[in-house]
């Protein structure tokens, strides 16, 4: 540890203390009868949207995007575009019906729609899988942040962060308190926006220098190179990101907080705006990095561009302050996303696994014990994998999580919401096909298997083949088993698609 570590440490401490303070304040926010009616007002769409943004914008968005753009150029813009556009798909096709279904988690939706506990269990398994795939890069990113901020060895990061998240989750510190998550969004936005503004002013003062290397031809092409393979990779990424968002367990549970389908839609609309506002800034960092941060690319440290750039461009107190701010933002990014995911995964493990093992010692005691056990499992597995696996890049492993979600939950939700003839057998077969396809590719990626040419591309970006495969399997098996279509399907779909205004009138 050295003097450079001070702003980072102060920032990390400040984030932790503020988070706990807001959590506590939110918890103690009691009302007396004089302002009764305030108490029963539901969370409004703007606040809820901020909270979704807070939970959604992970280390991959905060750190990864700028680094990817710096190295890979304009084709990497598809990451922020896809992460935002996913909410457009969610808004148009899923948000309101999903809320009207009354489901809290994705397994809940499967059970409500298909009336099958087997499909429910399959979904639980997939939630855990997607959650772990998404948690893994959070821990990796946290390792990078700590390494950059206080100079700790890389293995220390995931371990410390794992413990922090575990304590946080088990103590109930962040249990999806809307205020805390909303605060995290605005913190992350400020931590990116203010330094970006300041650094742009510095750049203007420098006389607007261009990239030292000069040739920006390939860098500014929005499609990966290598001809047809590059095109496939780009399209596959787009599919994964556009369609994977709806299958993220920690995002879906937040929609439950909306009082009705209309509010769910309005929330999604605001989320689109907030994400758009946020994703303007990582490319700014990347562009400035092209000018001032060439050595980071040479050293292979592009992922920490956001953290290092203030120091590279400004010396003295200003640089230190901005470094502190971006470190705070990065810490908030992994803390909120990792906690949200860990809670979602532990929730599923509690409901479907550990509560059956933890004995019959009275409901309250055993529920708490089962949740703690589940939290330990939920956090320790990805931490172990993060320690063992080679670093495959924060944003890329997030993309794998999206690919699995797009190949499993996307067909389930789309067909479940829009197609009356979906059967439990069809859903199960589709989930298996998509899950094994995309999940298998993800596991091969993690253990370091790399092909060449088309093989490598199909493996690294599975969504373009595994998503259609899952859709086709689900449709064909459902058509082959028409007798298994749940009897309440028609009624259920009517409920999903009836606007609340009509319901109240009727």
């Amino acid at each position, binding site marked *: 540890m050295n003097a450079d570590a001070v702003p980072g440490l102060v920032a990390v401490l400040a984030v932790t203390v503020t988070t706990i303070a807001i959590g506590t304040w939110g918890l*103690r*926010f*009691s*009302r*007396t*009868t004089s302002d*009764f*009616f305030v*108490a*029963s*007002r*539901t*969370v409004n769409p703007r606040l809820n949207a901020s909270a979704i943004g807070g939970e959604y914008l992970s280390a991959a968005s905060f750190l990864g995007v700028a680094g990817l753009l710096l190295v890979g150029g304009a084709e990497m813009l598809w990451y922020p575009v896809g992460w935002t556009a996913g909410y457009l798909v969610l808004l148009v096709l899923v948000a309101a019906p999903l809320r009207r279904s*009354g*489901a*809290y*988690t994705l397994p*809940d939706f499967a*059970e*409500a729609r298909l*009336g099958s506990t087997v499909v429910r269990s399959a979904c639980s398994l997939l939630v855990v899988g997607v959650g772990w795939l998404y948690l893994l890069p959070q821990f990796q990113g946290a390792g990078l942040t700590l390494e950059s901020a206080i100079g700790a060895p890389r293995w220390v990061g995931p371990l410390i962060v794992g413990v922090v998240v575990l304590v946080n989750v088990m103590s109930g510190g962040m*249990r*999806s*308190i*809307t205020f805390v998550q909303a605060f995290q969004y605005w913190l992350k936005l400020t931590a990116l926006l203010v330094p970006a503004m300041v650094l742009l002013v510095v750049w203007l003062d420098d006389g607007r220098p261009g990239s030292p290397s000069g040739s920006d031809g390939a860098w500014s092409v929005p499609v990966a190179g290598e001809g047809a393979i590059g095109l496939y990779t780009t399209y596959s990424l787009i599919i994964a990101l556009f369609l994977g968002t709806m299958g993220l367990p920690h995002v879906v549970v937040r929609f*439950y*907080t*909306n*009082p*009705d389908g209309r509010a769910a839609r309005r929330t999604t609309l605001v989320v689109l705006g907030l994400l758009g506002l946020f994703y303007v800034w990582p490319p700014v960092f990347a562009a400035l990095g092209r000018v001032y941060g060439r050595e980071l690319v040479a050293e292979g440290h592009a992922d920490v561009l956001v953290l290092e750039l203030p120091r590279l461009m400004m010396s003295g107190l200003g640089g230190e302050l901005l470094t502190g701010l971006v470190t705070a933002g990065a810490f908030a990014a992994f803390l909120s996303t990792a906690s949200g995911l860990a*809670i979602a995964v*532990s*929730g599923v493990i*509690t*409901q479907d696994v550990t509560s059956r093992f933890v004995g019959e010692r009275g*409901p*309250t005691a055993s*529920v708490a014990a089962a*949740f703690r056990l589940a939290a330990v499992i939920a956090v320790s597995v990805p931490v172990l994998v993060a320690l063992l696996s080679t670093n495959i890049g924060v944003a890329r492993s997030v993309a794998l999580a999206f690919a699995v979600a797009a190949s499993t939950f996307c067909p389930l939700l789309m067909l479940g919401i829009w197609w009356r003839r979906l059967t439990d057998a069809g859903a199960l077969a589709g989930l298996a096909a998509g899950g094994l396809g995309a999940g298998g590719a993800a596991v091969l990626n993690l253990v370091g298997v790399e092909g060449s040419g088309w093989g490598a591309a199909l493996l690294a970006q599975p969504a373009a083949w595994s998503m259609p495969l899952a859709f086709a399997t689900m449709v064909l098996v459902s058509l082959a088993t028409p007798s298994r279509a749940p009897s309440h399907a028609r009624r259920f779909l009517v*409920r999903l698609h009836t606007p609340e205004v009509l319901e109240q009138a009727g």
Partner: protein
Amino acid sequence: MRRRGHLGTEADRATFRALHQASLASPALREGLTADSAERAIKHLRTLLGTPALALTDTASTLAWDGSGGHHEPQAGALAAMLLAPTGPEPTRGWTRTVEPEQLPCSTAGCAVRTGVISPLVVDGRVIGTVQAYAATITAGLVRATEEVAQWVSGQLELAELDASRNRAMEAEVQALRAQISPHFIYNSLGAIASFVRTDPDRARELLLEFADFTRYSFRRHGEFTTLAEELRSIERYLLLEQARFGDRLQVTLNVAPEVLPVVVPFLCIQPLVENAVRHGLEASDPAKGAGHLRIVAHDRGHECVVEVEDNGVGEDPEKVRRALAGDAALDSVGLGNVDARLRATFGDDYGLVVETAPGAGTKVIVRVPKFAPGVTV
């Protein structure tokens, strides 16, 4: 043409006898499996089987014994308890078993109870007792017959369960209607409002509107479920009216996590608890002792929501609360048993009420509700 009065072949007559014995045992069994009903049904069942001795047990003890070898009676219960214990060998639960002489130690010479057949009584997939037939030697025929009798008895008990649940449902309906709004409350509220009409007409008007809204919610006829937000809104109106009556003697704190407001709950599942807290907790307490304090808290607990209703009143004997929860209608806390029954019926036995109380120590009622349960929607 057959002669009138002729009862057919020997086989036919055996069938008639069996059916007759069964019809004799049936009324008793339709009351459910108790010591009393078992006692009345057992001799018909033994005649049906034609064994020297027959026992009916629940999962832990002997309910009735008929025939010779009465000194074996306690053993029957022990055998049932052993076979049906949750720790027992899983594959044998719910299956017919034979009992060897070693398991029936006996010092009486010439005792007919040497071996036996034990067949379980299954209601709703749950083993609730056994039929045990004893004889000097068992035959395959006896095993088969015992099994058939056990199945028939199970069927009768299932019907009994159905009757009971139908009665319970009707009772719950009636109780729910009663719990919705008490005549005292209407009388007291209108009295309190009347007292404001001259001194503070604006407040009187507001209270009257609150009263109208409260009654509209409570009298609504459609829908078994509502959202926690709706339920809390109605509770707020109720408390405003009660505060108009009690003034400073009733202090209320609400602490509600906004995340749980969309949770779907059975209609009027919290309001009776609040009414109970006000009635028993505060009205019964000594006014000189100071203000009564009521606290309503709703937490977000991941896939569950937890609602707590707490008062600092006189408290209650835990034994009385236990009886109220068990459905003892003789007690005053009708709301408690009703809410508990409806929560269990909706979400399963894991979601009953938890009541923490002791005389003089106030009362705290805890309701847990899952955020999602199949079939539970507004």
